[in-house]
């Protein structure tokens, strides 16, 4: 793989990793949800520095060019991450529905209570 591409991807992963850290410290994302992105960056960087590992995987999976393998793996990882996010989203939606219903019922109970007193 071209050294320019390796350097570009590594710089990108490093900047992205630092950005994730920055957000954790600013408490904009929780550690739980940042971990999968973090793992993504670290695996990318490891693959990029270790040329022999990269070439072995490329041959093993049947790719012609190493850069294709990197992009394909990155794509698969993104698919997994976005599906995980959809799963979280569904759970969140269910929780919000329950909360909305309970808030509605509570509002009614509160009104009744004030009405009686």
């Amino acid at each position, binding site marked *: 793989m071209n050294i320019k591409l390796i350097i570009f991807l590594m710089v990108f992963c490093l900047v992205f990793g630092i950005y994730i850290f920055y957000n954790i410290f600013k408490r904009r994302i929780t550690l739980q949800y940042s971990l999968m992105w973090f793992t993504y960056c670290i695996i990318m960087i490891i693959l990029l520095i270790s040329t022999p590992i990269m070439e072995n995987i490329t041959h093993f999976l049947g790719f012609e060019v190493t850069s294709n393998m990197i992009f394909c793996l990155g794509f698969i990882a993104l698919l997994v991450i976005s599906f995980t996010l959809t799963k979280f989203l569904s759970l969140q*939606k269910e929780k919000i*529905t329950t909360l*909305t*219903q*309970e*808030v*509605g*019922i509570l*509002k*009614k109970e509160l009104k009744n209570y004030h009405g009686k007193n």
Partner: protein
Amino acid sequence: MQKVLMIIPAYNEEKSILDVVKEMKKVKCDDVLIDYIIINDGSRDKTREICIQNDLNFIDLPCNLGIGGAVQTGYKYAFYKEYDIAIQFDGDNQHDGAFIPHLIQEINKGNDMVIGSRFVSDLSEFKSSALRRFGINILSGIIKVCTGVKVYDVTSGYRACNKKLIEYFAYKYPVDYPEPDTLVQVLKKGMKVLEIPVKMRERKEGKSSINGFKSAYYMIKVTLAIIIAAISTRSDK
């Protein structure tokens, strides 16, 4: 005395909600206390103001949940307040309140769920458009294959449930297009479902939640929901 709760989901029903409540108040049934609860599902029109002005019994949801979420709120309320029977009744004045005593009677005969149906007799002159009837027939066929029970009006939102089902629905109810889905769950659990003839009117105000391009999406989604419900629901028996 038996306590019955009428669950009336209302989303932008400012023109019909008062008529629905008036109709409800006309219903008399011996030895039965009939209450109603309107679930205002985050309406953007004056539904909420009308409920306040007329001192109607209503729950005001802080945001729009969709029909399933609204109806489930009613079931939760019925469960917390220990009602014996819950009856779903549309907020758009499509349903005829005169049949409420029939539904209650059939629940008291030991049925778990009683569905007010347009198709089991010629009582209801309004039977929806040909295309929609065709869709309902297909869904009815799929449900027959999945559960072995033939139900004709599978999308009817005019249905009564006993105490056992109130508890079940309070915890578990699908978010959108819930009628066929819940029907399959109930049948798969081995509960008794009965269809009785009722009269339905054509809606005067507002639009149905299903129309145009949405109908294809509706058919695919509901078919999937039916199959998933049929596979994942375990029998209680």
